[in-house]
């Protein structure tokens, strides 16, 4: 039997109060991606299957390199937000914490790898 009142037990158990901020971040990154994704598809697409020398030469140019790096970074930030929300909907407790940490680490690892690779090609 608990000695806490109903009111006391309910206080502080509401929403996490980060929903608005999360939604806003998803909106900002989605607007960025609405511009970046078409640019990336039509710069990266023709290079897929091209010879190595041509690929390296193409992504050494400023525009394709910057578009590719931005697309990878922003899409991973956007993925981290979206995947976290999905996990929060379907996974609970300790598993949720492990899953959220994994998604965060994976997103940043992919973004860093992408930026490193493009920097090495471009510079």
């Amino acid at each position, binding site marked *: *039997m*608990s000695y806490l009142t*109903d009111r006391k*037990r309910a206080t502080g158990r509401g929403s996490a109060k980060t929903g608005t901020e999360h*939604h806003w971040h998803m*909106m900002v990154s*989605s*607007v960025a*991606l*609405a511009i970046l*994704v*078409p640019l990336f*598809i*039509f710069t*990266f*697409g*023709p290079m*897929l*299957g091209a010879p*190595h020398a041509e*690929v*390296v030469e193409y*992504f050494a140019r400023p525009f394709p390199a910057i578009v*590719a790096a931005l697309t*990878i970074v922003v*899409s*991973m930030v956007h*993925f981290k937000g*979206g*995947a976290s929300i*999905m996990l929060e909907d379907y996974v609970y407790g300790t598993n949720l914490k492990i899953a959220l940490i994994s998604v965060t680490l994976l997103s940043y690892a*992919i973004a860093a*790898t*992408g930026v*490193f*690779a*493009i920097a*090495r*090609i471009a510079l």
Partner: protein
Amino acid sequence: MADVNRGNRPLSPHITIYKPQFTSMTSIFTRITGNALLVASILIVWWFLAASTGAESFALADGIITSWFGDLVMFGSLWAVWYHFCAGLRHLWWDTTLKGLDIPTAQKIAYAVIGGSLVLTVFTVIVI
């Protein structure tokens, strides 16, 4: 305590008890396509890393991405990214104007999202 039924309370209605509808299906596909794009993201970043490493690594990564299975994954991802793109624009429109949330309009936009994603996919395949 007024609240004797602790831990065994009914959950709010969840997807399992709703009949699948056109609008709900186009909504859940936004989430599915978004998360599935992780596979293509990893492949593309690996492709870039291989290209930056050297001709030999590139041959391996490029060979796998342009194999029949790689092509299948990339083609599926192309549709997924255009679908997510269209559905995302739909969300931006909903969230900024608060219009189009009535059922007839929502259903029309759902058709537009599916149609738009297919048209954009075919267009991309033709152009690239």
